């Protein structure tokens, strides 16, 4: 292979990265320019051009893909500015699929297959977003959002009241809950708890966390919104409750050899309740992960900015 062969090979490789209509034109010009450069280099060296000389010249041009990129910049499939968010969403998808597969909510699903589908969907979504922004550069790309501390008193009161009714009241006294909510039209025997479950540590721990949940909303009423400590309290409460609800559904399977601890006396009720406990628990765990990420990534303005009058 002589110097000309090396340059021809490089020019072909550069042209392959270019749009079809530009290839021949750029290749012809690049070939002529490299020929000039090589001739000048050979003249300066006082010898005929050879392969090492051509290779040294081409090193200055960079890899063929880099050289082609200077002639024609192709749009990235995922905008570089979106890379961080793409990675976060991919990680969230991996965690979600992992949690779902652990509790077998989707039956005999293939977790790796589901993750690849999620990843593919994310690539499509981010590509379309990037394409849309390139097509409409003047479109507004940002809107102001409410901060992480936002929680008006009215909403906090509604959240606290709703939490006290559902799930605190429902969990603590399920038969009374059914009687009150359905005005005595439904039989309450289906939700009668077993003696063992009523006195179990699992129920005690769940009730403790459930009662702390409205207490947390009460704190947001007093503080007029979330603060960092209430944010972390929310993470701990939701994460803890999620794990406990998963334990309601998975305890007999998770700890082989232990006695099965049915929640309700009715076998049919247990059959219905177990997947619901699992699903609610999984959702709470995922929500706790998301809240933990938000707290970890929370941006607090410097004190001087926070105290600046409006």
């Amino acid at each position, binding site marked *: 292979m002589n110097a000309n062969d090396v340059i021809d090979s490089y020019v072909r490789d550069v042209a392959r990265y270019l749009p079809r209509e530009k290839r021949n034109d*750029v290749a*012809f*010009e*690049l070939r*002529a*320019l490299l*020929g*000039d*450069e090589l001739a*000048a280099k050979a003249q300066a060296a006082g010898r005929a051009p050879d392969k090492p000389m051509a290779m040294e010249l081409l090193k*200055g*041009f*960079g890899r063929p893909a*880099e*050289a082609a990129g*200077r*002639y024609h910049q192709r749009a990235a499939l995922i905008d570089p500015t979106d890379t961080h968010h793409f990675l976060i969403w991919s990680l969230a998808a991996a965690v979600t699929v992992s949690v779902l597969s652990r509790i077998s909510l989707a039956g005999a699903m293939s977790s790796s297959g589901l993750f690849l589908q999620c990843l593919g969907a994310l690539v499509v979504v981010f590509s379309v977003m990037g394409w849309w922004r390139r097509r409409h550069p003047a479109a507004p790309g940002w809107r102001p959002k409410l901060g992480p501390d936002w929680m008006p008193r009215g909403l906090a009161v509604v959240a606290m009241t709703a939490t006290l009714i559902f799930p605190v009241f429902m969990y603590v006294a399920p038969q009374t809950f059914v009687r009150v909510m359905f005005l005595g039209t439904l039989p309450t025997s289906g939700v009668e708890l077993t003696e063992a479950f009523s006195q179990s540590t699992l129920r005690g721990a769940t009730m403790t966390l459930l009662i702390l949940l409205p207490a947390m909303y009460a704190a947001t009423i007093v503080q007029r919104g979330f603060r960092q400590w209430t944010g972390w309290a929310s993470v701990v409460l939701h994460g803890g409750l999620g794990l406990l609800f998963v334990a309601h559904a998975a305890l007999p399977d998770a700890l082989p050899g232990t006695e099965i601890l049915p929640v309700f006396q009715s076998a049919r009720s247990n059959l219905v309740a177990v997947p619901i406990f699992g699903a609610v628990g999984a959702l709470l765990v995922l929500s706790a992960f998301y809240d933990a990420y938000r707290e970890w990534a929370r941006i607090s303005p410097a004190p001087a900015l926070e105290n600046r009058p409006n």
Partner: protein
Amino acid sequence: MAERENTGLTELRRGVLVLAVLSRLRIPQYGYSLRQALAEGGMPIEEGTLYPLLRRLEAQGLLASEWNTEHTPRRYYRLNAEGERTLAALTEAWRDQVRVMDQLLDGRRR
């Protein structure tokens, strides 16, 4: 330290590259001859940077080009009417910038 200075110098030169190239294209030049002309004028440019820049300027409508295949085939670039106007405008803007920068660097008010 020297590396940081080199990076700063590269950034500075990148900003005036278009003006430097346009200034040398009042007469037709092909890629290598233009690179030599710029180097002799104190503005050496990497070949990998200059050649694509010529095509970009042509695509922006500032340059005209034609192939000369009498000897070694070469593409000659020169300013067109729009390129002449752009060169004049950029030259004026550059001189204004030099004046502003001199004032800033000397610590004087405008």
